[in-house]
């Protein structure tokens, strides 16, 4: 038993490393000796690199899912770039007294939050999911409020915190209904209940209400409509490195949470009987991208503009999620909305962090340049940084040759191939609208005359981060195969159901047994009886499980003895969930049923 715990903890090694580093950095940041305090940045960087290497090792990968490994690597990679962007935060908090007020503990908060994001895809329980989401959010409330001395930061902090607590309460209320509907907080057990219930025409109100509240609450984390309005104030008020952090950490965590939760329901899109959730996601996606882009057009403040553009990009990712996961694990890109969403998430993180890093460098220590006029003509003074920013902005527009183009291409492909052509049209039209305000920044940098001639020189770290981001934006845009195969692998985890399904037909009875080997169902069994006089059968469903597996049995008792064609119709009685649809066993079963009929 002890060994079992040890091996399962091994999958969490990167997060453990990040949290231990956070503790060390927190202590070092409070040290008396100045030398020790100044080592906090390096300690944080080394911790993130060690976590990245640990996530790569086979020992760790064998104890987690492909999605978990992908998210950990993404988090550590982007986290490293964010640390470089935030390199001078400890001085910048109080420019008047750089030495006495040097606050090394700032990085501890970033590391805690990164550990939370990295943990997101490894959770298998609603309680864990809640803890991971809060581990991401709570440190961000602190860095927003204390990131800089101006009163805007505190205004942003209090708005962010109160709305964050409200959103947490909303999605928790949803979690409580999901638990009440399924009787367990384990993901595997919840999936089994959704699958056994899915053949009804309508899900029970409790499940629908739970999912609605969860999506509503998590829309705050990803800055999507209806809880998007805080974004502009918070992005503007927070210090710029913190803003860069906000555009990655809560968003990545929120989207992975949505992917996991929709995975619980079996993604019943297209073939599912209930359209409430897909319809809601479609409306959210359309409103989010349109409102974000239209309001971004009106902004003069660069950080506010990035806030609205961040809202718009959340809309694109939601549009990808509406397409749902691939029909067959290991299939092409065309049908796979989850892979498109994960790719866009990675691409957006790179582009936006690069743009923010360049902005941080241009702003200098005083944290001054906020208005678009402040960076006018900056290309003559800082040609390198301006070029990095321009590359990232062109990628945000979606120019061919950059990673942003591939991201939008995959989303449009996924939407078109699953029949959501309205969403595809909205994505394309919005990309065109967005070009206007991104090009305005590029034009200001290159075409206009300098407004304020002198800019304070700062450390090279943010510039290094910007250059790295720009290089990767181009590099992955031209040669994406490695990234694509990783994401393919991660999304297949969502597409493939590893369970087996068996159908036995005997006289008046047909039994369907599905077996889920992953996760724990908890102890106990549950059974339900559903009678459908029109179809002439009664369905008795039993759920049973132990620590390692979960078995769902449906027994159909027919009024008449089964004939050949009834065997076929029984095969069609299988819960029409895409997760089962994709299972090779079910496909084989349907083929054989069809053969019997012939």
């Amino acid at each position, binding site marked *: 038993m002890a060994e079992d715990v040890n091996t399962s903890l091994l999958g969490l090694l990167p997060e453990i490393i990040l949290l231990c580093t956070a503790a060390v950095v927190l202590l070092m940041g409070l040290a008396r000796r100045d030398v020790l305090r100044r080592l906090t940045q390096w300690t944080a960087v080394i911790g993130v690199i060690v976590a990245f290497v640990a996530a790569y090792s086979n020992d760790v990968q064998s104890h987690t899912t492909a999605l978990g490994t992908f998210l950990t690597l993404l988090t550590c990679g982007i986290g490293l770039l964010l640390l470089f962007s935030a390199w001078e935060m400890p001085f910048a908090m109080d420019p008047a007294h750089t030495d006495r007020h040097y606050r090394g503990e700032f990085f501890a908060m970033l590391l805690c939050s990164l550990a939370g994001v990295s943990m997101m895809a490894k959770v298998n329980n609603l309680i864990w999911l809640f803890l991971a989401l809060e581990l991401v959010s709570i440190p961000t409330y602190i860095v927003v409020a204390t990131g800089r001395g101006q009163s805007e930061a505190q205004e942003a902090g209090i708005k962010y915190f109160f709305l964050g607590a409200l959103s947490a309460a909303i999605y928790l209320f949803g979690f*409580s209904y999901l638990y009440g509907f399924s009787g367990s907080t384990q993901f595997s057990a919840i999936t089994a209940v959704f699958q056994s219930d899915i053949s009804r025409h309508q899900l029970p109100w409790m499940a629908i209400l739970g999912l609605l509240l969860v999506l509503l609450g998590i829309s705050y984390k990803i800055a999507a409509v209806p809880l998007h309005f805080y974004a502009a104030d918070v992005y503007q008020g927070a210090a710029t490195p913190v803003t860069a952090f906000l555009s990655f950490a809560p968003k990545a965590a929120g989207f992975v949470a949505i992917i996991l939760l929709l995975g619980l329901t079996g993604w019943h899109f297209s073939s599912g009987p209930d359209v409430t959730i897909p319809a809601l996601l479609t409306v959210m996606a359309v409103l989010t991208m349109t409102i974000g882009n239209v309001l971004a057009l009106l902004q003069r403040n660069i950080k506010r503009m990035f806030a609205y553009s961040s809202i718009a990009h959340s809309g694109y990712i939601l549009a990808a999620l509406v397409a749902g996961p691939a029909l067959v694990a290991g299939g092409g890109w065309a049908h796979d909305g989850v892979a498109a969403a994960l790719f866009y998430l990675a691409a957006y993180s790179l582009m936006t962090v690069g743009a923010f890093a360049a902005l941080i460098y241009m702003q200098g220590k005083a944290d001054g340049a906020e208005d678009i006029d402040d960076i006018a003509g900056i290309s003559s003074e800082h040609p390198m940084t301006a070029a990095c920013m321009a590359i990232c902005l062109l990628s945000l527009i979606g120019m061919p040759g950059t990673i942003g183009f591939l991201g939008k291409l995959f989303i449009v492909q996924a939407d078109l191939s699953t029949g959501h052509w309205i969403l595809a049209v909205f994505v394309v039209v919005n990309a065109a609208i967005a070009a206007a305000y991104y090009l305005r920044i590029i034009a200001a940098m290159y075409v206009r005359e300098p407004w304020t001639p002198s800019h304070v020189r700062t450390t090279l770290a943010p510039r290094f981060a910007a250059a790295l981001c720009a290089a990767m934006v181009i590099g992955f845009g031209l040669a994406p195969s490695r990234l694509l195969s990783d994401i393919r692998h991660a999304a297949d985890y969502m597409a493939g159901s590893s369970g087996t399904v068996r159908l036995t037909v005997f006289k008046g009875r047909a039994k369907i047994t599905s077996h889920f080997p992953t996760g724990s169902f908890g102890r106990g069994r549950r059974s339900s009886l559903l009678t459908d006089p029109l179809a002439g059968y009664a369905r008795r469903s039993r759920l049973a499980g132990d620590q390692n597996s979960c078995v769902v049995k449906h027994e159909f008792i027919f009024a008449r003895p089964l004939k050949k064609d009834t065997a076929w119709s029984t095969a069609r009685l299988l819960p029409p969930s895409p997760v089962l649809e994709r299972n090779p066993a079910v496909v084989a079963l349907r083929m054989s049923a069809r053969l019997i009929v012939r």
Partner: protein
Amino acid sequence: MPVMSQAVLFEYLSLGAVLFVLGLIGFVARRNMILIFLSTEIMFQGVAVNLIAFGRYWMNMDGQSFVIFLLTIAAAEASLALGLVILLFRRRETLNVDVWSEMQG
């Protein structure tokens, strides 16, 4: 122990929903920072009532263990909230949130 009936379960669920909605109304209607925060706490308690009632209904421990973690996080948020409120109070000498609306647009 007798199993909880659905009728009793719905009484508890109604209590949870009422607490949640009261908290929501308080969040929107109040202007005092401490009262706004307490409103979110009331919403959390509504969730806790739900979880415990469901835990009793399904006769497993998931609901109760969820509540223990919920209370821990709520306590962490409470300490953070008080720290923030003190930080803001020192600057403006008032607890009214309406004075904190400089950023617009």
